[in-house]
């Protein structure tokens, strides 16, 4: 018998964790002499109070959906992919090569090609750690995190020495041609008299992220491969007994994971910057770990957690713009949310389970 009803597990625990994180953050803000209520209302109105705010929130969320899904798929095979950052960097390189080397007639064709290139580059970057784990037993956590540094050095070399336009002082590629600029929410939803999402970077790749959520859900719970991945993740010996190859599952799960992380580049490189800069991923690969943990590795949970982190990013930017709260403190607030929702799960869960058990005894 379950200790708690399902709604309490899915809704109550995250909400209580969030409340605790909010209360602690408020105490921290009070301690440095700012008004916590004003800060929270600034974050909420700044991130969710206008289509402009939503445009930024959803832009960040799109990044986190991709990296969150990447980590979640690997989690199902009980693999800890910390290399989302490097895989997304390589995905960006793939997108830049595709966008700059071919004269695309229309953005839609370019988007399809960029999706393919970013997935191939991301998957290729995950393939080597996957092979080393499957065949040589080199721990995936160590190899993927090392590959993040190699990716950064490779990107620096490419941007400073190879792809930088002659005479430019900025280590970045040239701007992508007009034809491959993705439609933003502003151009998609605005009417002549009512401009929505003005200047916000959210773009059509948000919908690609939603499709990716559905595809991952179908893959994990509705296909034979997904069943094998989950079986391997639950029990390796059981999976081997059932005739599932550990090598194949490790490599395939990591390839899918790397492809999803690489796919993030269509949002930040092709959709927002419209060129490849050195610092394009800015930690989204690591945020993806927190997003997958909080979303319980389920695509719908990942979607909700990504929106929450998008809200924290955009709300944090508004705080930085209009208050004197230093940016380090904004990181503290974000970290508190990660701590309570991801790491300190049992702190809320256990008392809650006891509470439900005592209710049940009382009624029985």
């Amino acid at each position, binding site marked *: 018998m379950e200790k708690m009803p399902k709604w309490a597990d899915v809704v109550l625990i995250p909400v209580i964790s969030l409340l605790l994180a909010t209360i602690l953050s408020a105490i921290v803000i009070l301690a440095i002499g700012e008004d916590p209520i004003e800060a929270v209302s600034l974050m909420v109105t700044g991130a969710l109070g206008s289509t402009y705010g939503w445009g930024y929130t959803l832009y960040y969320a799109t990044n986190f959906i991709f990296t969150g899904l990447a980590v979640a798929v690997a989690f199902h095979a009980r693999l800890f992919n910390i290399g989302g950052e490097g895989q997304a960097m390589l995905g960006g390189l793939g997108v830049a090569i595709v966008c700059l080397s071919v004269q695309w007639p229309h953005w839609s064709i370019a988007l399809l090609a960029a999706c393919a290139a970013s997935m191939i580059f991301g998957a290729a970057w995950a393939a080597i750690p996957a092979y080393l784990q499957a065949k040589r037993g080199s721990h995936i956590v160590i190899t993927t995190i090392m590959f993040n540094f190699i990716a950064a050095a490779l990107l*620096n070399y490419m941007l400073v020495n190879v792809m930088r336009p002659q005479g430019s002082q900025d280590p970045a590629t040239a701007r992508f041609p007009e034809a491959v600029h993705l439609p933003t929410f502003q151009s998609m939803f605005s009417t002549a008299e009512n401009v929505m999402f003005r*200047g916000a970077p959210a773009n059509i790749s948000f919908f690609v992220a939603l499709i990716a959520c559905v595809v991952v859900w179908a893959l994990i719970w509705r296909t034979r491969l997904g069943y094998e991945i989950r079986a391997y993740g639950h029990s390796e010996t059981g999976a081997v007994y059932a005739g599932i190859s550990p090598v194949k599952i490790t490599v395939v799960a990591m390839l899918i994971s790397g492809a999803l992380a690489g796919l993030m580049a269509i949002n930040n490189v092709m959709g*927002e910057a419209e060129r490849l800069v050195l610092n394009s991923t800015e930690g989204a690969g690591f945020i993806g770990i927190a997003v997958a943990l909080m979303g319980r590795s389920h695509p719908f949970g990942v979607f909700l957690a990504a929106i929450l982190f998008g809200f924290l990013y955009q709300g944090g*930017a508004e705080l930085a713009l209009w208050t004197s709260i230093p*940016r380090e403190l904004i990181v503290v607030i974000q970290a508190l949310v990660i701590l309570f929702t991801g790491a300190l799960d049992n702190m809320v869960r256990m008392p809650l389970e006891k509470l439900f058990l005592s209710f049940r005894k009382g009624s029985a």
Partner: protein
Amino acid sequence: MTLMKSLMGAAAAVALTAGAALAEPALIFDLGGKFDKSFNEAAHNGASRWAEETGGTYREIEMQSEAQREQALRRFAEAGSNPIITMGFGMADPLSAVVADYPDTTFVVVDVTWLDAPNLRQVGFAEHEGSYLVGMMAAMASKSGTVGFIGGMDVPLIRHFGCGYAQGAKAVNPDINVVANMTGTTPAAWNDPVKGSELTKAQISQGADVVYAAAGGTGVGVLQTAADEGILSIGVDSNQNHLHPGKVLTSMLKRVDVAVYEAMSAGENVETGVFVMGLAEDGVGYAVDDNNAPLVSDDMKAAVDKARQDIIDGNVNVVSYYENDSCPALQF
């Protein structure tokens, strides 16, 4: 009636504060953050000096992500901040997308000189000229005939520093050996004093007895190790002579603080256009104070001041690394 009065009063107060906010400048720091001991901190110092002297206030933000660059520009412009001062070449691309939408706002950018907009003040620095002078001093102070250069992240801007330094050293002693190293290829290279210290030791083992650090926070480690090992060092951006009195030969000054201070003092009517702050404008130069006066001989000072005048008059041409992405005096 009283209600009406207080409402009117409130409206007037709102209008007044709005009016006051109109003249408020804004400062946008680059990703390094305002306490990076280097470029951004110099901007912060310039802004605080303005605030202290005039009692004025300004808005500021430290970038956390690339997407925030354009966001911060638009939000400050829409809130009526004027002028909006931005730091670093990373702002060039966002600025070119934004400035035309806010023709009544004046934007200022430091370290960018190649954009074209009527409401933009672009301030560049002739870092190669300042580096040339300290390169001359390094060559004169060196007894071993080998001098060192330690850069931060390997980007064109830092090669630009190193190139001027090598040219200055070779102007004094054509046979001098210039050893150059970069700290790394990621932004972490701007703040890695331990690696700066390692590189300094490596250069000492190659015979260097003067090292020039153009590496942000990494330079703290370079200067420390040079002082510990008994060789001379050269600081960068702000005057770092006081860090190790008697051990720092000089500092290559890049007056980012002055650029920010001047823009804030001029307010929204700040002159637009391209301004390159070279030796003539005192935008770059070398530092002499009580801490390094015993190290700088009269001959040295005379030679460097003559070279300074020659560069200003056009008799000496210091080649810029940007001209053809290569350096005549140093291989990277």
